[in-house]
């Protein structure tokens, strides 16, 4: 007997506990199965790209903090990299090493948040794994507070280096953190790696095939989870990344489980890079002499780094004035999100939310 069913549209609206911000998904359901999905965003658009045209290059750095606010150092870094490329400013060695240290600490912190909230979306409704991961993240945020005075929006990097040097108590604390962290990652593995419920919910769910990932310009753990070995730190090394020895973890199938495993393994690789950077850190000054009212030569530049979400790029066009003529931000969250529909169609409601959480977006970056 053929049951006559009718699909209905459910609005997982801008206000929803799991949409990581104000993001709207108009999902068409047939029972519990997703038939179609249409993302609607723009609720958090603040016009950052237009604001850049009326601010000097240094004044824009606090605004880059507010893009993916959970990984602010990486946004700062990408922007100053673009400006330094445009104006051909050399950066001292110590500043480069410190930038790498900050980037990798940021990567660990952001992945902790991403995995924690992914588990939250999966249903640990009292946030237990999230709170365990927050404990480590608090330690990282304490380190950042020691260096630049803030815990969320750092405003630490400047064009030509950093704003100030690290205080003397930073290095012992960092070494202690790096020594303690692997045992905590082992604890997370004990809680989650063989958990049957987690395996049942994430293995084989929300598969992003390799071809589709490449065609959709995905990047970051989303791309590496699908089996593509592409990491800007190795493919197009910026800063001093070519002096470090680390691996690029990839997944096999491209399901939620692979993306989650890639993030956990990347945390371990970040610890490895941190150890090497601490050993190789030279002395010296931390900022090149750059005037506050910088006037780069006429031209354009594209600076990109590997943030915890993927490839973040800043495209700058300058016309020799104190403010950029045009600034465009290639946001990894938005580009990764374009593949969401194909990942979600055919799965159930609970999987749609979990897949969305595994891409790790932040709507502030999607909407800029």
């Amino acid at each position, binding site marked *: 007997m053929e049951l006559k069913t009718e699909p209905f549209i459910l609005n997982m609206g801008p206000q929803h506990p799991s949409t990581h911000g104000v993001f709207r998904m108009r999902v068409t359901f047939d029972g519990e*199965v997703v038939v179609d999905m249409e993302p609607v965003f723009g609720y958090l658009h603040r016009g950052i790209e237009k604001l850049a045209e009326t601010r000097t290059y240094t004044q824009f750095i606090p605004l880059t903090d507010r893009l993916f606010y959970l990984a602010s150092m990486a946004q700062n870094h990408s922007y100053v990299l673009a400006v330094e490329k445009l104006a051909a400013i050399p950066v001292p060695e110590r500043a480069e090493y410190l930038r790498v240290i900050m980037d990798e600490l940021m990567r660990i912190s952001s992945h902790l948040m991403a995995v924690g909230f992914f588990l939250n*979306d999966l249903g*640990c*409704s009292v*946030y237990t794994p999230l709170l365990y991961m927050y404990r480590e993240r608090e330690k990282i945020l304490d380190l950042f507070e020691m260096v630049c005075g803030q815990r969320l929006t750092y405003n630490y990097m400047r064009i030509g280096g950093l704003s100030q040097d690290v205080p003397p108590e930073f290095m012992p604390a960092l070494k202690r953190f790096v020594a303690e962290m692997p045992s905590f990652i082992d604890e997370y593995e004990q809680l989650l790696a063989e958990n049957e419920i987690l395996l049942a919910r994430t293995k084989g769910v929300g598969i992003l095939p390799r071809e589709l990932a490449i065609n959709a310009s995905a990047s970051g753990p989303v791309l590496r989870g699908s089996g593509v070995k592409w990491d800007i730190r190795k493919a197009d090394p910026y800063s001093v990344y070519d002096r470090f020895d680390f691996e690029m973890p990839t997944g096999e199938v491209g399901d939620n489980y692979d993306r989650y495993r890639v993030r956990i393994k990347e945390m371990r690789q970040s610890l490895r890079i941190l150890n090497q950077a601490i050993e190789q850190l030279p002395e010296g000054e931390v900022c090149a002499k750059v005037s506050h009212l910088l006037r780069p030569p006429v031209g354009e530049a594209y600076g990109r780094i590997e943030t915890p979400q993927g490839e973040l790029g800043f495209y700058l066009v300058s016309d020799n004035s104190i403010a950029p003529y045009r600034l465009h931000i290639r946001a990894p969250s938005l580009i990764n999100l374009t593949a969401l529909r194909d990942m979600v169609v055919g799965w*159930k409601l*609970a999987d749609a939310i979990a897949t969305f959480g595994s891409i790790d977006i932040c709507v502030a970056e999607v909407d800029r």
Partner: protein
Amino acid sequence: MELWPLDNYWAHFVLFAAIIIVFVLIGVMAYVYVERRTFGPFQLRWGPNRAGPFGILQPVADAIKVLLKEDIVPAKADKWVHWLAPIVVFLPILMIFAVVPFHEGQGLVPDLNVGILYVVAISALGVVGIFMAGWASNNKYSLISAMRVIAAMISYEIPLVLSIIGVVLITGSLSMNDIVAGHNIPFFLLTPLGFLIFLLSAMSEINRGPFDLMEADSEIVAGFHIEYSGMKFAMFYLAEYGHALAMSAIAAILFFRGWEGPGSEYIGVLWFLVKTLFIFVLLIWIRVTFPRLRIDQLMAFAWKFLFPLALINLLVVAAEVVALEEIPWWILFVNFALAGVLIPLWSKFFKLGGGRVEVKV
């Protein structure tokens, strides 16, 4: 059954009805407090400790807050059904406690000769209330949640009943009083597989723990009680914790021998409360650790894993009861060995369904 004060049926009835209502309300508030204070240490924090000494007045503060809230009914909702639903969900819980013996032969009707059957029948009425709430709210999220609830709760009734029958077979009586007084060894040792199945089915019946997708906060935003506010929401909240209290009490009676313990003539009631609390802490521990299952995995778990195991458990217990006159104490080793063999073996056969559905675009 001794009619407690004055040998008068009506006095007995009124007194115990009052005791049960007070017990349930205070028990639920105590449960809320215990749950929040226990989540704290599991998550490296303290839990509420501001309202009153050690935070004891926190549930009172919650109750006052909820009472003072505005009662909003959606414009297109079905008003009468919307109003009735919390009542229909909460009443069966009070009715379950009618047959629960707090001490030897003391309760409202503790040696009702179909005690456990009455409990199972009444607890199934809650499903109707939840469906009423889901339908009457005129909200697609509630409807999805209500459909899930119906499917899940009906499926988990069967392993629940089958595991209870194992206990009933050994005792030979359906009356709750006789089940406790019946045997010397607690039943969670005698039928470990039955206890496990009962615990998992009970967790699903009360929409808790890894089976709480009926009110999944992160997907369907509180499910069937999404359109309720104020006192009606408090009734749902009370009903959820009340149902947890009821299931813990039933588990304590069936599997842990209720009021028995050293010195039980005087402090039997205290032992009953301690055992109920112990099972509740076990439920909290399970809830704290795990993510939740998806609806099709939940149904597969009930029908393909718990149901066959419950049948096998029943068969084995029946065979033991028929073969031996009196169940000796060494039978528990046999049962443990059986459970230890069956669970890994059956897990190998258990295949989860679901997967991607081909959608014609």
